[in-house]
């Protein structure tokens, strides 16, 4: 059975429950489902923010996420994989990104979800700008995200 990933890059919100159900309902080969939801926080480095605006490079974002999803499907025995990344203006408490993995066993589901999140943070062409009382600022990339992504590199 060939498993293909569901990838969506959209301005609209997503429904975590529906995406989890889509990978597990009505089948009996899935033993583990992991979901990761990334949510807009109300403060960045101690400063309150009003919203984030996510800019992205549409064609490349699609290609990059597809490439990493295919990589995850090749590396772990997954029965389902969904990646949704939003763009546009997102307020505190709202969803930004979702990864859902389904597998027979828990370790594959956990590892594949972490792998994809690490890559989305460092390689997917999205850029966050924050709005706060001090104006708007582009958020800087975090070194620790590069470190997290590097642990998946085949040596």
């Amino acid at each position, binding site marked *: 059975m060939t498993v293909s990933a569901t990838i969506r890059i959209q301005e609209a919100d997503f429904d975590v429950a529906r995406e989890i159900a889509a990978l597990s309902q009505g089948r009996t080969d899935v033993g583990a489902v992991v979901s990761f939801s*990334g949510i807009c926080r109300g403060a960045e480095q101690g400063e309150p923010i009003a919203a984030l605006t*996510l*800019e*992205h*490079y549409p*064609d*490349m*974002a699609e*290609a*990059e996420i597809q490439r990493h999803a295919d990589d995850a499907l090749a590396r772990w025995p997954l029965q389902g994989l969904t990646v949704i*990344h939003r763009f546009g203006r997102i307020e505190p408490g709202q969803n*930004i*990104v979702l990864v859902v993995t389904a597998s027979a066993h828990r370790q594959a589901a956990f590892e594949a979800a972490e792998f994809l*999140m690490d890559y*989305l*943070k*460092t*390689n*997917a*062409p*999205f*850029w*966050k*700008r924050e709005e706060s009382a001090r104006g708007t600022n*582009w*958020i*800087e*990339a975090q070194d620790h*995200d590069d470190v997290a992504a590097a642990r998946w590199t085949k040596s």
Partner: protein
Amino acid sequence: MKVKYFAWVRERIGKAEETIEPPADVRTVDDLIGWLTAQGEAYAYAFEKPKVIRAAIDHAHVKADATIAGAREIAFFPPMTGG
């Protein structure tokens, strides 16, 4: 070739994309950054720290020494902050 700019690179240059025709001796991404830097103050400002700038050719990440021969679309942007 088409060039696209994102995030603060786009803001500093003041446009999201343009079509350029660099001379034949502009062979690599690095060469192209150098050539663009000489196109005016806005470009010089956007590329003032070339080591920070990331590039993609035809939707795939590339390094500064990648050749631009045959590229349809080159993009320049800061380190990504998605996820």
